[in-house]
């Protein structure tokens, strides 16, 4: 885990250019990057503004360190990647699961664990903090698991044959060619007969 414990403001101060640029990028670019990271943390229900600002700056500092070596990428892009990396690394540390590039499910599991452990309500201050964490928090994060149902106990229901009796014969009649036409003619004739009978 490589999470700085010093004040993020101090760290940022070192990256300020004399020209009014930060880490070689215009201030507007970092403003947009700030907005991007802040939006995501806001979506994670980090509602404490002081904490939110501190966390965003921590991510931005990591992004600013990378920025000079990646001129082809925008500050927002770099900041978003750093945000993802920071959060994933923190999940890996808390859940004791090494992050792998192949499996994006660690992030999913981490977010779910945060929800089930009620991180937004009870443990907001622990988010992205380096260890040690309170035992209760760690335990609830690691135990968190959501299930749609109990263990499957698979079986196969198979319809038993139902002998429909004379109906089977009737439904098979439908396969006789020109049956509908013949039926329509028969009905027409019956109608004529009925009209005749009723009117005489």
């Amino acid at each position, binding site marked *: 885990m490589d999470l700085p414990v010093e004040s993020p403001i101090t760290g940022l101060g070192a990256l300020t250019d004399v020209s009014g640029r930060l880490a070689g990028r215009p201030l507007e670019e970092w403003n947009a990057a700030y*907005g*991007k990271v*802040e*939006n*995501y943390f*806001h*979506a*994670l*229900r980090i509602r404490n503004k002081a904490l939110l600002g501190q966390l965003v700056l921590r991510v931005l500092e990591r992004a600013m360190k990378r920025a000079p070596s990646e001129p082809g990428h*925008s500050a*927002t*892009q770099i900041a*978003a*990647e750093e*945000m*993802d990396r920071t959060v994933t690394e923190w999940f890996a540390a808390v859940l004791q699961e090494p992050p792998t590039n192949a499996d*994006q*499910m660690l*992030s*999913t*599991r981490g*977010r*779910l664990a*945060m*929800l*089930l452990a009620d991180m937004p309500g009870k443990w907001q201050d622990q988010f992205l903090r380096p260890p040690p964490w309170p035992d209760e928090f760690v335990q609830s994060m690691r135990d968190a698991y*959501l*299930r*749609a*149902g*109990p*263990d*499957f*106990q*698979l*079986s*196969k*229901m*198979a*319809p*038993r*044959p*139902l*002998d*429909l*009796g*004379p*109906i*089977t014969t009737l*439904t*098979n009649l*439908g396969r006789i060619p020109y049956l509908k036409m013949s039926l329509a003619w028969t009905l027409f004739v019956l109608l004529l007969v009925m009209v005749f*009978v*009723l*009117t005489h």
Partner: protein
Amino acid sequence: MAGATPQSAPVSGQPPPLTVVPLPRIHRGWRVFIFYSCALLLTGLVSMLFADLLWRTGWSASRTLLLVLFAALFLLIAVGCMHGVFGFILRVIGNPRRITQADCRAQSIDGTSTAIVFPIYNEDIVRAYEGLRATYESLQRTGQLEHFDFFILSDSTDPDKWVEEERRWYELVGELDALGRVYYRRRTDNEGRKSGNVRDFLSAWGRRYRYFLVCDADSVMRGETLVSLVQLMEAHPTVGLVQTVPALVNARSLFGRIQQFSNRLYAPLFIAGLNYWALDLGNYWGHNALIRTEPFMQFCDLPQLPGKKPFGGYILSHDFVEAALLTRENWEVWFAYDLEGSYEEVPQEMIENAQRERRWCQGNLQHSLVLFAKGLRGVNRLHLLLGISGYLAGPLWLAFLLMFNWIHWYQKYTGLSNITVHAFTPFLNLNGTTHALLVFAICMGILFLPKVLALIDLAFDWERRRAFGGLARATVGVAVETVFSTLHAPLLMLWHTRFVAMNLFGVSVGWSRQKRDTDSTTWWYAVRRHWGHTLIGLVWGLFMWRLNRYLFWWFTPVFTGMVLSIPLSVWTSRRTLGARVRKLGLLLTPEETKPPLELVSLRSQMKIHEITDDTTPRQPHAGLADAVLDPYVNAIHVSLLREKRFNPVYAEQLAKLGVGHVGVQVLGEKLLVEGPALLTAPERLLLMTDAHAMVWLHQQTWLRAGESLAPWWRAAIQEYSRRD
């Protein structure tokens, strides 16, 4: 009832076939004979009287047809009346032949496991979940919650509903602290509709549970009732299914309150009468019934019917057939008609009610294919036949009225004189008019007798009488209900005729969401739905006026219902009118005068939602936006999808859909760059069904620079950043 024990199977593993030794059923044959003989005797005598009336003006082929139609229709109302009469007598003298007769309160339910399943399909999620909450909390109060699990079995196809179901499920389990007790599962494949949904549940988890209880999305069950049902099952090992009689509750419109009132007042008589002849060969109504899992799984998987839709294919009204298949294997099916604490809701408007009728009509007509299936019990054939007759009565009644008109028209326009001869039964000493009036009075008497008996039954039961607001108010309620049903009946006749005709012409009903509590019917909507009824009423009325003014007045109840169908539909759908009638103390039901705790809890929760929920209409594809953008909703959604991998059947279905295929990634890219509107609904559903795609989409929307996302996504992200 007791005496034979099934060769029970273990709860887990593949069990051997279950067999039940058939019980001696000595009394039922006599009961069926006596019950239907009474109806037939009455029909025979009144049909004779009617034939005699027809005889007076000369016999003809059309009169023969009229007589046949009369006899068929009269038999149906006589059977209905007999249910009321037999039910009334049984309520007066007491009925020892019922499943609830034995006191099972001491019966232990330790070691039992029961699943309470809520199959839902694009439903009003708030209402469905609050019903579950009320049931859950009620069960919790009994101290027996540990023996029950709850399952929300979703078949929803609307992505917004799907995501809302998942989100609200999580909130619900959080509030109830019921993680691991209340589960949610959505099917990727809606094969077999509701019965397929339940079958899928049974295939995945059925063997874990000794019993299961199917609820509708608007069902509520009292905890004590659930425990009593399990106790009944435990005490009677040969019983395969116990059907409760759900009380209609929570109606707010005038239409709903009329239905609710008549259900609560008349149903006890009718079901007691039904139980008289059905006994242990009762019926299943699709919900609010406890079912023994093992025999149901072994014997009740429904075959598809031969032929094309609407008659062929899946059986829509699966419940009757499932009961018949259970009893075919000697399992008993009972009505627990005196067990309180089982509730459901009713459509609030005439039009919504008719839409539900259309679905039921197709399902019941399908039963005509099953009617002659080999091995079914005669009593179950009667259940099927009564169901079919209920819908055929509409076209038969219309045919009767048309034939009646034809005879008069023919008589008038052929210039034949109407010479009245002596009746075949001269000893009655009736003239033509009195004779006709007598037949009419008997018909009305048979129709209204059960209502009168229900009032008499109420008069002798102090507690029930008070629950209905007193005898005087209940009597006024019956009068209101009678006037309304007189006006409503011709409309039902036209609707049923149309539904039956559509079925015969091969038009199948779709599977649309059931609207259970909507706003009132608007005038424009009522005009669009009822203009045909109004026109038929006007033309028919005019025709009768010109034909015979005396007859015209006799037909006015039929025309009035049709001509007034539009205002009737609008006014009876109004909540304000329903509330005003309630304020007057009319159409009261026991659940209104003394609401049970679970309904109070349901109503207060619904009120909280009404006040606190954001009612602003959400943007299109809001559910998709939630599932992709919201870190927690996305995590829940993906976790539930990933669970499916453990079930080979689900894994196969997912593979068949194309989940995990490279094409899904292409669709995902298209979704990000062009927005959801440019994807088809199945494409959006496919993306939402792919766990990896959903994780990838979540990551990409938050990682990518705004310029590389569709404006729709940029707006959605902005909305998230403003959300509290």
